[in-house]
């Protein structure tokens, strides 16, 4: 049942030009940055070879690529993708189709979330083609690539949960998009405020960025994974509660 809802969300995305243009734009920008990075590597290749324990090709290209992706996708793409989820259904009054079907609120929320996850995974798969294409001519550090993409996947899943919740709050997709953008940007830059203070870093601890960066360095810290899992759960539970309140309030 969850899958049926998810599949419809996923398919519906591709029925409008939105999904296609998102895929194209993200791919274009990241490819540009990716190529720039390769050029950089080629310029300094001889110098790198002379260095002792110099960073490898993967280390130079992948963290940078995923670092850029982690800004563009959560801040620009996720709000656009998630804004419609509930807000548009509420506006078009199609929510009653789901409410009067024999489904629990949890199933509805999980279904919608699954649809967005499927799209984000497709996006990730497309991005991963770029570094993986280098395997033709170089030795790659697959561990680093896997860790980086796992981190990005968790980050996107977290932001999608935030976006879904924002979409349950309103009937205007644009409002949902702006709020999602605001919350995610705030989570992203939280660590800026803590800089310079010795003990005032608890805000920085909440920052998405600080729990993403270790993945890029190839470090899988279970605390970081738990942070993302908690973020996802919190916002999904909040979404279920919010939809239930729809039925109670009216």
């Amino acid at each position, binding site marked *: 049942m969850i899958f049926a809802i998810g599949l*419809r969300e996923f398919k519906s995305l591709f029925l409008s030009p939105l999904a296609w243009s998102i895929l194209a734009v993200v791919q274009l920008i990241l490819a540009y940055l990716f190529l720039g990075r390769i050029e950089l590597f080629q310029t300094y290749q001889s110098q790198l070879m002379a260095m002792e324990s110099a960073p490898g090709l993967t280390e130079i290209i992948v963290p940078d690529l995923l670092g850029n992706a982690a800004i563009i996708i959560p801040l620009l793409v996720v709000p656009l993708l998630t804004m419609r989820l509930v807000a548009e259904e509420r506006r*078009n009054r*199609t929510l*009653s*189709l789901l409410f009067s079907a*024999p*489904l629990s609120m949890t199933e509805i929320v999980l279904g919608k979330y699954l649809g967005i996850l499927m799209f984000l995974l497709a996006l990730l798969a497309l991005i991963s083609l770029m570094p993986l294409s280098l395997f033709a001519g170089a030795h790659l550090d697959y561990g680093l690539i896997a860790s980086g993409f796992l981190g990005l996947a968790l980050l996107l899943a977290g932001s999608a949960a935030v976006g879904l919740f924002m979409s349950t709050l309103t009937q205007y997709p644009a409002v949902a998009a702006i709020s999602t953008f605001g919350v995610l940007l705030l989570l992203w830059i939280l660590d800026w405020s803590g800089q310079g203070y010795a003990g005032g870093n608890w805000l920085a601890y909440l920052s998405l960025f600080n729990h993403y960066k270790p993945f890029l360095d190839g470090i899988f810290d279970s605390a970081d994974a738990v942070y993302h899992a908690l973020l996802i759960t919190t916002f999904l539970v909040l979404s279920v509660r919010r939809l239930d309140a729809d039925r109670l309030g009216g």
Partner: protein
Amino acid sequence: MNGAILVEVKNLSRFYGAFQAVKDVNFTIRQGEVLGFLGPNGAGKTTTMQIISGNLAPSGGSVAIAGHDLLEDPRAAKNQIGYLPEQPPLYRELTVDEYLDYCAALNRVPRANRRPARENAKERCGLHDVGPRLIGNLSKGFQQRVGIAQAIIHLPPVVILDEPTVGLDPIQIREIRTLIRELGREHGVILSTHILPEVQATCDRVQIINKGELVLNESIEGLEHHMKSASLTVAFHHPPEPGLLAKLPGVKTVRVENDGRLHIFHDTQINPTDDIVRQSVEKNWGLYEIRPGRLSLEQVFLELIAEATAPEATSKMQPGAPS
């Protein structure tokens, strides 16, 4: 009406803040019955329907659908209903077939049965030719039919239709009404409307709701009874003096209508029809029309609503009551 009880609503009430939209409503629907839910705008029709369909939680009371309590066992209860809200919940970007397949999946129709279920629903709603078309491109009438198809795709025992004929042309309205009558043979149907002839044309039983309270719960025959009044409309080629008619036994007053017809109010016990016909023949008045006066459903409706509001008005006059 002796089908099994499909919906049992007990002491249902619903508040929006301090405003009580539905007050202590009780009713039942049996299988093979079309129940008309009638009321002016803002009377609480839609609220009641939203509650029965599980879209809105009641503030008090209970709803049981085919024996399953809607609050305690919502999944089993919702399995038994199909709901068409005022505005059909259609995804405009899907084709009719895609949409109906999705609805079948949502309503837990097993995968193997989805296709037959979809074809059956399309057949019944006259949608066979529009399967591959986008819902957004269909006319309002067809969209409405897709909405009904969505509500019956899993063959639920109870079908709830909220103002299904709004915005349709007369031919479409007639088709939808026929469809509702057909549905009423096997399913229990609740039909909300504020169009009175629609109730007369399609329903077996009528409920009138006003300001959140049920003011009438009658079979259509019972309603007909309400509508008979003690009056006659007559027309003559050579009309006599109204005074002459007024002297007939049982006649209370005679009123001359603008078009030359006479409106005769008589005693409920003594019907002067025979006398009028006999006199007309004897005195060559040239009677060419005589029919019993009937209140239209509109008049009954207004009367009931007036009755319901009148006691309220007087109770406000009582000393001590807040004004």
